[in-house]
Structure formats: C-alpha cells, structure tokens
C-alpha cells in the first residue's frame, strides 16, 4: 500500500465514527465511545506509520508525500483537493494524533463512564451528582468530528481544504463550548466564541480569495515552494500602498490566525470557552484549534516573510505580527496573574504562549515557532487535563462533604499533593515545562530558542517583552501549582478529594513523558555541556519545509542566562508568595498591586469595553435603527404605500376596465353564442333522417350547379 493512500485514510475514521454514532449508535454509550476511540486509534496508528515514513525519508522537504485530485472545476482550472506530508505537517500530525488520542481516552473517565445515570441530570446540564454525562454519545460524536477537522487541516495540501477543516473545527468548538447548553454562561460563551472567530475567518477568507486571484492556485507547493511566485507577490504592490501583495495576503491570513488563536484584540472568547467540558478545553486550547491558527501562519511563513532576508529589516506585515504576538504574550500573562479560576489561568497562559509563537513567526524564527508549537501542545494539553482531574477530585470531595463551592476556584483547593499524587506530579511537570524550567523540560528549549532568535537578530523590544512575559509565566505557574497542590487544604472538599480513575491519569502520564522528552529533539548543538549529545533534529527536519534552510544560530550565553534567570526567578517568587495561603486568606498580590490587581482581575475590562463599543451598538443598530426606523419606517412604509397604490389601481381596473369592457365582451360573446345556439338548435333534431335530407338537398344543389350552371 502506498504511503499516500495511508495519508488519505488518516482523517476518515473519525468522521465515519461521527456519522455512525449520530445515526445508529447514539443509544449505546459503550458502543459510542468504542467507535470514537477505535476510530481515533486507527487514525493514530496510521499517523504514526506516516510519521515514521516521513522521518526516515531523505530530503522530505523537496519531495513530500503528496497526492491530489481535481475537485471543483473552475473554468479551465480546477480546485485540487489533496493531501501532503512535509516536515511541518508531519510533526504537527505527530502531536495532533497523540494529544487527540489522549483526550479521547481521558474523556471516558471525565464523563464518569460506568457510573449510573443520575435521575436528576438533565441533558444540557453538567452531571451534578457524579452520574454519567446524559449526552455522552453526543460528546464523542462531536469530538470525533473535531478530530476529523483537525486532521483534515493538517494533512491538506492547499489552503482551501485547510479552510474547510478550519471551519469544521469552528463549528465543533461552537457546539462543544456550548455542550452544556443548559447553562446561560455556556450559551453566551458559545455565541461569543463563534462570533469572534467569525471576524477572523472573514478576513482569512478574504486573504484566500486574494491569494487565488493573485496566483490562480491555492496549493502550498505551487506558492510557497515557488521562488518566482513569491518574489512576484513580494514585488507587486497591493491596494494598501505600504504593503506588497504578499504582505497584504499574509496580513489577512494572520487576522484569521488572530481570531482562531485568540490573539489580542480577539482573545476575549478563549477564557469564556472554559465553560465547556475540560477535554474540550484541552482539545480547543492545546491540541487543535489554537494550534491550527499558529499552524496556518507557520505554514505560510514563506509568504509572510516574502521580500525579507534573514537579518534584514522586517516587512510591515512581520512587524505587525511580531508586535501583536509579543504584546499578547505579555498582556495575557499579566491577566493570568490575577485569575483564581484554574482553567482561566491556563487559558490566559495559552494566549500568551501562542503570543510567543506568533512573535517568533513575526521575527522570522520559523523553526522556533514550530518547535514551541509542538512542545506547547503537549504540556498545555497535559496541564488542562491535569486541571480537569483536579476539578474532578474537588467535585468528588464536594459531593462527599456536601458543601457548595466553585470547584474551579483555586482558593478552594490546596494541599492536593498528597490526595492526588499522579495528578500532582504530572501537573508539576507540565507547569515546569510551561514556565521553562531549565535543561530538562521541553518548554525551556523551545522558549529559549525563540528568545535566542529574537536576541540574535536584535529585536530588542520583542526580546524584552518576551523575557518579561516569561518571568510572569513562571510566576503565575508557580502560583497555580502552589495554590492548588501545596500548603494545607483550604476547604473540606479539598480534604476529601482523591485521585481520578486510570482512564484520566494514564493520558496525563503519557503527555508528561512528551512534555519532557519533546524538547530534547531540538537542543542547539552549540549548547555548552549537553549540546551535541543529541543532534538538533528538529531544526534539520522542520526547516526542510522552507526553500532555503535558515542556518542554526551560533550559541550566545545572554539569552540563555536570561531565560534561565526568568524561569527560576519567577518560580521562586511564586513559591515564596504562595507557599502557604491560609483558608479564606486573600491573594498576597492584592495589597502591593492595589487597583492594578482589580484591573487585571477584570481582564483590563476588555469584555466591558467590547460590550460598550461593539455589542451594545450592534444591539442598538439591530433594535432601534434597523428594526424600528429602517424596517418599520422606511421599508414597510414604502411597501405599504406600494400595496395601497396597487390596491387602488386594481380596483380602478376592475371597476372601469375589467367589468364593463372585458367581462362585457366575454358575456356578450357567451350570450351571442347562446342565442344563436337557441336559434340554430332547431336544426339539430337528432333525427338522422333530417340530417340526411339536408345533406341530400345540398348534394342535389351541388350536382345541378355542376351540371347546369357551370359552362
């Protein structure tokens, strides 16, 4: 069997599982999750085979596995739909497969499979008494479809198919965030997420169309691996004077990324998306969707950086991207400082980490961005699942003690280290990876890569911003760990919490292994001690996706030291600050920061700001302007006037034209026919003889005429 055939087959099992669950299997929970996980297992196996092939293939970058078929005829050309495996999609496929599989397995335990269904549970509401999820089968159907979308996006060889997968994921995130549609907050969150990402998607679609009109194709190879196309795009100016066509397209696509990956200013939906079940959070915010956004710009790195030479000045597009990325990184990190909801903290950290990647792309650090994408996917998925496990434990404790509290609030936790050791250790690994604990964790290597790149090319602003963000990251990570696991239990529920089932802990362990090991694939070879023990495989492999390989950076101690310092410093500060927080004690940061803390806690009032600036005007526009004035007043008025006029015209026509003239004529004809008929009918006696007489008389007349009168 050819490898391409395998690639075709990878996305199919989940969608088949989706269809089968929705159509047939939704009555049986067990059958449903067997279908979903079985299909995901098949996809995972295929993906691993493909990945193995890809890794062992020489010079994959220039000869990727690619197969495509014409799909949508467009005049003389046709949209081709196909699959491609090049280094970038290979590594992406790798972590997507792993994380998705882990999340699938995790979902079983998370939704209390095997517990009896609690009679009090209603579909659309989270099970409050630890019973099985009422819409268990539906959940698996949705995440299967989600996995299908993600795999499609990763494997596609052109922008159109990528966009299709992209939108499938958008739909699924909408459905999954609102999975518990009984909760008003979930409803609002789903609508918010959908709307916000819609903004980005519209621009992305614009960019797509622009790209197609400019190049006449959407295939990666024909655009990104084509020197002439790139240079032409870079040379031709676009509608906006300062931007070249390439820059314009890149910017539009990047706005799509901003929406999908929740970059500032479209980041607001991501924290609210925490309303969904935790596996969904992990799925959306680690494995799939947000990664998809970054994957898009990383994939289109050659287009974005077209006209830029390594070490040269950044193009306007790159500047914008770098700025937004760096700013988002810092901004989100600051918000994360003041959040108490364990998942919200992770959400904001996700935003800031994505900011790292975006900034990396902005400054042209392709390999670093891809590297951090992978490592981040692993340890962030780990963290989310861990937090879910923690919440599960606390909920369990709350059910036992029967006290009503928010199981997500870290202030209600503490001292869970002894209660749930596996969760603790895996969470610790994830946290250290996030905060970039030196040398061992994956996060250190990837983040250090970015910093080093920024430093090496002299983007000071970016470098400093990211360094500060790294410090804050380490700090709030430690804060989270300390508040959750260290110290003494601050509530009864925390006391009675205990470890989750194996289906939840096993994925944690697996992901923890990757959270540590994934980094070793990309150790720079000039690193002092351990450099060169392992070849910088990541750099060699992934950079194959580009036309000309960026050369590896020469070693520079400054960024290394900085990153080590910020990581360790942040961790220690956080540990010192939150080592022991008493029950009911307030956040130690509150006093020193003062009002700033409130601002941070309220996320810079961004939601309120948007509500004031966009939402309420939108309401007003819809309610008052459009509905009242335009619709009621203008359009309806006009229509009513037209209707009344038509009515008058019609009555006039009826009374003065139709009745007298037309009907009169018709009646006249009818009456005439009737009268003449009444006159003539006497001829038609129905007696054959008389007919015959008439005929004979005429025949006689005719004969006599023929014989006598005719000469």
């Amino acid at each position: 069997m050819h490898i391409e055939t395998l690639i075709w087959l990878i996305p199919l099992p989940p969608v088949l599982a989706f269809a089968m669950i929705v159509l047939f299997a939704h009555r049986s929970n067990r059958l449903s999750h067997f279908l979903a996980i079985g299909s995901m297992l098949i996809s995972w196996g295929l993906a691993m085979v493909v990945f193995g092939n890809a890794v062992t293939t020489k010079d994959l970058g220039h000869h990727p596995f690619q197969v495509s078929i014409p799909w949508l005829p467009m005049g003389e050309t046709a949209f081709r739909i196909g699959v491609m495996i090049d280094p970038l999609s290979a590594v992406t496929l790798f972590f997507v497969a792993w994380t998705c599989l882990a999340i699938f397995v995790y979902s079983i335990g998370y939704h209390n499979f095997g517990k009896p269904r609690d009679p009090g549970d209603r579909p659309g509401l989270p099970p409050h008494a630890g019973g099985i999820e009422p819409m268990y089968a539906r959940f698996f159907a949705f995440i299967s479809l989600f996995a299908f979308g993600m795999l499609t996006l990763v494997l596609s060889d052109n922008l159109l198919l990528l966009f299709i997968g992209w939108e499938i994921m958008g739909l699924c995130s909408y459905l999954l965030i609102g999975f518990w549609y009984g909760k008003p907050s979930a409803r609002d969150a789903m609508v918010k997420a959908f709307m916000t990402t819609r903004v980005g998607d519209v621009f992305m679609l614009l960019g797509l169309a622009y790209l197609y009109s400019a190049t006449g194709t959407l295939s990666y190879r024909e655009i990104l691996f084509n020197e002439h196309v790139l240079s032409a795009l870079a040379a031709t100016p676009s509608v906006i004077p300062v931007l070249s066509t390439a820059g314009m397209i890149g910017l539009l696509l990047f706005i799509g990324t901003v929406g999908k990956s929740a970059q500032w200013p479209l980041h607001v939906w991501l924290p609210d998306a925490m309303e969904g079940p935790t596996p969904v959070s992990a799925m959306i915010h680690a494995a799939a969707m947000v990664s998809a956004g970054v994957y898009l710009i990383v994939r289109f790195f050659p287009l974005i950086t077209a006209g830029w030479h390594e070490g040269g000045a950044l193009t306007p597009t790159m500047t914008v991207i770098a700025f937004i990325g760096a700013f988002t990184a810092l901004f989100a990190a600051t918000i994360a400082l003041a959040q108490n909801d364990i998942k919200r903290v992770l959400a904001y950290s996700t935003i800031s980490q994505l900011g790292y990647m975006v900034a990396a792309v902005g400054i042209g650090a392709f390999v670093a961005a891809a590297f951090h994408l992978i490592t981040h996917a692993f340890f962030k998925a780990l963290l989310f699942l861990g937090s879910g496990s923690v919440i599960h434990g606390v909920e369990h404790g709350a059910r036992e003690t029967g006290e009503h509290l928010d199981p997500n609030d870290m202030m209600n936790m503490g001292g869970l280290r002894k209660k749930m050791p596996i969760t603790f250790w895996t969470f610790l690994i994830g946290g250290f990876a996030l905060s970039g604990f030196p040398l061992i964790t994956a996060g250190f290597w990837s983040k250090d890569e970015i910093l080093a790149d920024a430093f090496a090319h002299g983007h000071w602003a970016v470098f400093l911003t990211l360094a500060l963000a790294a410090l804050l990251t380490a700090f709030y990570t430690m804060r989270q760990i300390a508040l959750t696991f260290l110290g003494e239990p601050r509530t009864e529920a925390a006391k009675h919490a205990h470890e989750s089932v194996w289906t939840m802990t096993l994925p944690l362990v697996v992901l923890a292994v990757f959270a540590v090991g994934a980094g070793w694939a990309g150790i720079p070879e000039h690193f002092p001690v351990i450099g060169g023990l392992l070849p910088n495989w990541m750099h060699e492999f992934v950079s194959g996706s580009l036309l000309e390989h960026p050369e590896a950076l020469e070693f520079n101690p400054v960024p290394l030291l900085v990153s080590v310092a910020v990581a360790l410093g942040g961790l220690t500060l956080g540990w010192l600050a939150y080592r022991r927080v008493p029950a009911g004690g307030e956040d130690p940061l509150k006093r020193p920061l003062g009002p700033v803390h409130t601002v941070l806690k309220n996320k810079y009032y961004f939601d309120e700001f948007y509500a004031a600036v966009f939402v309420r005007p939108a309401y007003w526009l819809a309610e008052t302007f459009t509905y009242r004035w335009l619709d009621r007043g203008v359009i309806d008025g006009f229509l009513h006037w037209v209707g009344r006029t038509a009515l008058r015209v019609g009555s006039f026509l009826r009374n003065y034209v139709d009745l007298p003239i037309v009907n009169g004529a018709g009646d006249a004809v009818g009456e005439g026919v009737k009268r003449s008929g009444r006159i003539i009918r006497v001829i038609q006696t129905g007696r054959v003889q008389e007919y015959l007489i008439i005929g004979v008389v005429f025949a006689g007349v005719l004969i006599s005429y023929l014989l006598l009168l005719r000469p």
Partner: protein
Amino acid sequence: MIPLSWFLIFAALLFCVGLYGALARRNAIAILMAIELMLNAVNINLVAFWRYLGPEAVSGQAFALVVFAVAASEAAVGLALMISIYRRRHTVAVEEIDMMKW
C-alpha cells in the same frame, strides 16, 4: 333491343324511390328496406354499364358482388342494432331515437 338509357332511367327512379323511403319512413326497418332498394338501383347501373360498355371486363360484376357483400353486412348489423334498440327503448321509430340531439 333495349337502349341503355332505359336501364339507367329505371335505376334512377328506383334509387329516388328508395331515397324517399329512407328519408320519409318512420320505421327504421322500412328505412333499411329503402336503403336496400337504393343499393339495388346502384347494382342495376353497374351491371347495365358492364353489359353495354364493357362486356369483356369483369369489373362491373365484381363491383356488383362487392355491393352485395356490403348490403348483406349492412343489413345484418342494422337489424341487430334495431333488435337491441327495441329491447332497450321498445320502439323502432327513428324520430324517437334522437339521443344525439343537444
């Protein structure tokens, strides 16, 4: 010898008598008889022309034979119709058989 015109006049008279009967009688059977008379007149003409104009050719008598066949079938069907009409309406007076009028 007899001139041809005698036969023709005789045939014409017979035909017109038959015609009058076909047009004037009330009884359908009488009409049928009158039609037979007309057919006979036609036959007389045919045979007379054969005899006087072309005794060599067989056409005159052949036509006469065909006329016989037609007359026979016509009589058969007509009489059957009358029987069934009589069964249904208990009359054979043609002016009472006027279902075909308005």
